[in-house]
């Protein structure tokens, strides 16, 4: 078995075995979908198809949240000591990072697909090809989000810190991504943040496919908040996908570097060195 496959398989098994979590996560994504779709409906006035527009946004945001949150699994591995077993093994650090990113992404995508099915029930109209494409976009974006989450987890090093940091970053980014509130309705002074927010572009490519918007002209896309004109330069949904992938690659490199630093697992060693004094000095 390839080391990446081993990590992915192990993480998926671990996930499935915590049944409460599976149930909770599924419940949350459905709850979010129903709540947001009905609550935010009024903010979507002026769009051709407000419900599908909103539903597609909620789906990709749930993928985002699940991916980032699942990255905290690695903190459990660190505190249980298991991470040390992985770090001293003769596995390339790229494989460790890839294994964790992939497993987080697979879980998030599966949940995303289930949310999408609920979305179809609630009025999202998509064909088979669209479903396949949407799942692919979910997987790619989930990998980016997992890489971001993994990096945040390795930086924060403990669960409470990770929760604080991730919600501090996730909440605002979610609200200025256009997923819940169309970017066209966001006040002008916030637009720079909208344009700097990677979620904006992930939302745009996802929505572009979900709404079958390829028939629209660039101008129409811009008017609907799926393409962005920044100082005359237009960022199309496909460019949005490229941006998402680039950000993912960037954070992947950061994660690999983080794992490559030999002293990474000192948290556990420090507590192990009971009389060492090093722990107290850190």
């Amino acid at each position, binding site marked *: *078995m390839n080391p990446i496959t081993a990590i992915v398989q192990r993480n998926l098994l*671990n996930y499935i075995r915590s049944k409460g979590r599976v149930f909770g996560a599924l419940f949350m994504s459905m709850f979010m979908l129903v709540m947001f779709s009905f609550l935010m409906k009024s903010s979507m006035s002026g769009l051709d198809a407000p419900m599908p527009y909103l539903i597609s946004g909620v789906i990709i945001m749930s993928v985002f949240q699940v991916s980032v949150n699942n990255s905290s699994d690695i903190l459990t591995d660190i505190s249980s000591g298991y991470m*040390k*077993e992985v770090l001293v093994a*003769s596995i390339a650090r790229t494989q460790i990072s890839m294994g964790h990113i992939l497993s987080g992404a697979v879980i998030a995508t599966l949940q995303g697909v289930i949310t999408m099915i609920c979305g179809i029930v609630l009025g999202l109209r998509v064909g088979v090809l669209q479903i396949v494409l949407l799942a692919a976009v979910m997987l790619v974006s989930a990998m980016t989000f997992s890489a971001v989450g993994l990096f945040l987890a390795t930086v924060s090093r403990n669960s409470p810190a990770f929760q604080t940091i991730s919600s501090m970053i996730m909440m605002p980014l979610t609200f200025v991504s256009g997923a819940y509130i169309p970017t066209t309705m966001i006040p002008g002074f916030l637009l720079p943040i909208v344009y700097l927010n990677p979620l904006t572009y992930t939302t745009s490519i996802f929505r572009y496919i979900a709404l079958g918007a390829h028939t629209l002209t660039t101008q129409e896309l811009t008017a609907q908040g799926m393409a962005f004109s920044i100082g005359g330069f237009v960022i199309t949904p496909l460019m949005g996908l490229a941006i998402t992938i680039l950000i993912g690659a960037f954070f992947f490199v950061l994660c690999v570097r983080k794992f490559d630093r030999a002293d990474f697992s000192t948290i556990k060693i420090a507590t192990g060195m009971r009389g060492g*004094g090093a722990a107290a000095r850190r």
Partner: protein
Amino acid sequence: MNPIIQVEHFSKRYGDFTAVEDISFTVDEGSIFAFLGPNGAGKSTTINTLCTILDKTEGTLTINGHDVSRERGLVRKDIGIVFQDSTLDAQMTVEENLKYHCAFYKVPKNEVRERIAFALDLVELAQWRRAAVGSLSGGMKRRAEIARGLVHDPKVLFLDEPTTGLDPQTRANVWEYIQRLQKQKNMTIFLTTHYMDEAEVCSQVVIMDHGKIVAHDTPENLKHQYTGTEVDVTCAQTEPLESALQERDVPYRKDKNKLMFHTKKASAALEILSAHRGEIMDFEVKSGTLNEVFLAITGKEIRE
């Protein structure tokens, strides 16, 4: 014998705190090597550096000819580690823990099943292979961890206080597995411990204190060098033996008709004993322990 581990002038500092200061030693292939010392002596720091988990501050450390800082990947392939604290995957079964370990170490697919069976047999956990690790007792977890550490056939197996926190019975068993392992696989075993009796069966012992090596030798030599042999003799009449001891300037203690004295070696006592064979009713010869060695070198007991 070939040295498989070479450490030269290794130091590790955390800020202005020095955990290990300029230590050098070698470990022969196929030997059992013990690092002895109280908590905080720098044993774990050294083991973690050898295991590529910590970075050195200074010095050269090689395992099987590979530098532990520059050739981490190659070093990792050659070693197996049982850490002080559990690093098992609690949600997985014993077998799954070993299976993923094999994947991490790229054990050939057709050998995985056989190797897992062998390792689990060795530590007598075969019947528990489908049990979740989290549900096992402390001793079984330790054994599972040892099985996992050796399933990829490492050249060197590091055991960082493998028996700490175990009850005496389990401790004896774990120790038996370690010795069996070394014999069956001719593996080099590098362990840290603060149990003196464990270090006595090793081929080489390094005693560390405050980040420095204070002694390095075979357990026998250490005992000879730092402790003597205590001879307790019970006599019908103590006077003849007492005067013989006084003649030789051997200090002794007297308790009723029992005389107690120290000699460098047990054989040195033989001459006195045979000369006074007639008066001796009974005698006892006690050789020194590593505990006394440690006490003699550092001036304190190892168990704090």
